[in-house]
């Protein structure tokens, strides 16, 4: 192998190195974005669990109470107040069942 051949090989290798660095940078951008999204999802789930579920329960309770005892509400609204929690529970159950996997 001559000096020129080695030099040209090094030039090619340096170019290759740049490509490899570009690949690494691009993959890491994607990985960091994914990690960031995971973190956001985790916090959203936590906040949703801490505040969203109790708030939903209070609202459902209030809706049911109004439906049972409220005299100011009209019948369709009363039916809606009863149906809303039931539909939500049904939907949540359906999602759970659909995603259910039997762990072996």
């Amino acid at each position, binding site marked *: *192998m001559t000096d020129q051949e080695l030099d040209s090989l090094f030039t090619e290798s340096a170019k290759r190195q740049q490509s490899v660095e570009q*690949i690494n940078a691009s993959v890491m951008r994607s990985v960091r974005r994914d990690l960031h999204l995971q973190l956001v999802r985790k916090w959203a789930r936590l906040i949703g669990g801490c505040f969203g579920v109790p708030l939903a329960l209070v609202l459902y309770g209030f809706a049911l109470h109004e439906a049972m005892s409220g005299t100011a509400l009209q019948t369709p609204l009363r039916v809606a107040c009863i149906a809303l929690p039931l539909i939500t529970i049904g939907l949540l159950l359906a999602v759970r069942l659909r995603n259910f996997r039997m762990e072996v």
Partner: protein
Amino acid sequence: MAIRPTDIELIREVLQDSNARAFETLMKRYTSQVYGAAIRLMKDEENAQEVTQLAFIQAYKQLDSWRGENFGAWVTIIANHIALRLLEKEKRRQTEPLDENTDAQDETYDEQKEQRLQSLEAAVAQLPEADRQIIRWHYYEDIPLQIIAQRVGQTENNIKVRMYRIRERLKKVLTSTPTNL
């Protein structure tokens, strides 16, 4: 001297602590290998880059399904699958005859050059750390020998002699390495 973490340790860090740096370290160990495999199949630098990126992203997403085999080989297999899928898709999409396309791709790809590049990378990796650093600075970061001499605390002439010896060693290794594997 810092202990080099094993692939398994790095993967554990990624899975348990969501450590992006651990994945970066792991990826840097194998990018060249996976890219080499991708360019062999794709015969085109741009597509090979895309395949390598997709392979590492997929590997990251499926890291929990890794079964403890060689990580580089595992990602290379993923890259091969992606490359074959892309080639298949490309073949279906092509309206011109396949032979014409193959000729066009071959112009940008040289199997022998690829093998020599991989041999050079392997030969450089075998050098002692200090010599490898000099090669990295001079050829990959384009740093003049004068600056390298200042960095390592030697004269420029010393560095020139050292560089000559390193080059001779590399030439010897590369000449003895068969290129048509």
